[in-house]
């Protein structure tokens, strides 16, 4: 298995990348390569041009903003997310999700922007970004535009990035410091893509009442799904396992994918369980709990 022939470019500036995107046909951007290279090796994609982002300046950073949020460059390695103190402090859900992404050898190369642009519905970082209301910044010939994840995901593995645009950064809005978070998944082996996963964040008041909650299901629908009605239904209630179990039953009715290995019905059975476990993990950590150690 060898990649098909293509022309290779390794620009150093973002405007050069946009220039190439605007002038060339059948082009692929190469980020960490942990999905694109397998697809090239297996010849699932046959690009005429491959533009490597690995030498482009200004795409690899984790920036803590004054408002308590995070802005992360598209070429930031998954390994960097795993060990970043800012990520651990401000968006611990990202780190929790990253620990499920592939293996150390793939996290050393794989990037945040690559994962979001590939937009595999089972990808942990996509699911976490949906739960965290992430906003992506796309650079095109006319400059930057921002899109919420809900607008960015057009459909199965289809981001809203125009052919002349590149993803440059992702913003994660601030969450209260005392929020809880949970990421759980069901996969055949550690490091595999999830058959079903769930990501949750939760804020409770002194009486244990839920004041803010977000829940995303990954690997189940054609894109990770938020559960807005379920979330609204939980607001104001006192958090407990019984409450979550009751409300999460609604997850069994989401539209699920069939694939060669797993039926839609199986995913629908897993969905409430994943949702409940993610919410419970978030509850246990709300008010400040211990994070999973990186490895």
């Amino acid at each position, binding site marked *: 298995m*060898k990649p098909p022939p293509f*022309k290779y470019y390794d620009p150093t500036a973002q405007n050069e990348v946009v220039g190439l995107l605007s002038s060339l046909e059948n082009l692929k951007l190469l980020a960490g390569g*942990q999905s694109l290279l397998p697809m090239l090796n297996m010849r699932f994609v046959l690009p005429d041009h491959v533009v490597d982002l690995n030498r482009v300046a200004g795409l690899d950073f984790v920036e803590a903003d004054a408002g308590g949020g995070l802005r992360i460059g598209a070429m930031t390695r998954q390994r960097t997310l795993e060990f970043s103190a800012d990520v651990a402090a401000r968006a611990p859900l990202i780190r929790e999700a990253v620990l499920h992404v592939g293996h*150390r050898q793939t996290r050393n190369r794989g990037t945040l922007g690559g994962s979001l642009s590939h937009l595999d519905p089972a990808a942990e970082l996509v699911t976490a970004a949906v739960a965290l209301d992430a906003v992506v910044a796309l650079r095109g010939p006319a400059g930057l535009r921002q899109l919420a994840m809900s607008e960015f995901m057009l459909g199965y593995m289809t981001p809203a990035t125009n052919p002349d645009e590149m993803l440059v950064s992702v913003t994660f809005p601030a969450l209260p410091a005392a929020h809880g978070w949970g990421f759980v998944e069901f996969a055949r*082996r550690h490091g595999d893509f999830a058959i079903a996963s769930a990501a949750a964040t939760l804020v409770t008041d002194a009486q244990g009442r839920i004041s803010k909650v977000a829940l995303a299901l990954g690997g189940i629908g054609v894109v990770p799904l938020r559960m807005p009605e379920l979330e609204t239904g939980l607001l104001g209630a006192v958090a407990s396992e019984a409450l979550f179990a009751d409300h999460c039953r609604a997850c069994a009715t989401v539209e699920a994918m069939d694939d060669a290995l797993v039926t839609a019905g199986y995913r629908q059975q897993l969905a409430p369980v994943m949702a409940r476990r993610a919410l419970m993990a978030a509850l246990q950590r709300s008010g400040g709990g211990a994070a999973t150690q990186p*490895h």
Partner: protein
Amino acid sequence: MTGASRRAIKLQVNGKPHAAEVDVRLTLADCLRQEFKLTGTHLGCEHGVCGACTVLLDGQSVRACLMLAVQADGRAVATVEGLAGADGKLNILQQAFKDHHGLQCGFCTPGILMTLTECFADKPDLTEQDIRVALSGNICRCTGYQGIVDAAMDALRKMRSLL
């Protein structure tokens, strides 16, 4: 800028300068094996699943089947050939694999040795659980992994006693 179909590249492999003119589509793994004749880096799946091709790029473990050789231009690569001494004497980790039945056919071994080399350099106080998690990215069809874990733990103990 114009695109290239072939490129001249220069990189360090196991501390020695290497240069070649390669097709841009050549993977780093194929470059090591075919251009530099360093066939210690094995290819099992060629799509990032098995870990046999693991090498270190500037000290970090990467799948050499998922990188282009041109991307390693100017970088330092470490492969299994660089582990033993110049006289061929196995290093502590390699010797532990020999002592603990950490390999049978040996196909997976180069990737596993390079993964563990990175782990040991990152964090010398690894636990057995850390080792098992690290090895999740390397598939072995022969050993059942227990010998590999035993070898890794033994090598860790020996390295610590030298500190």
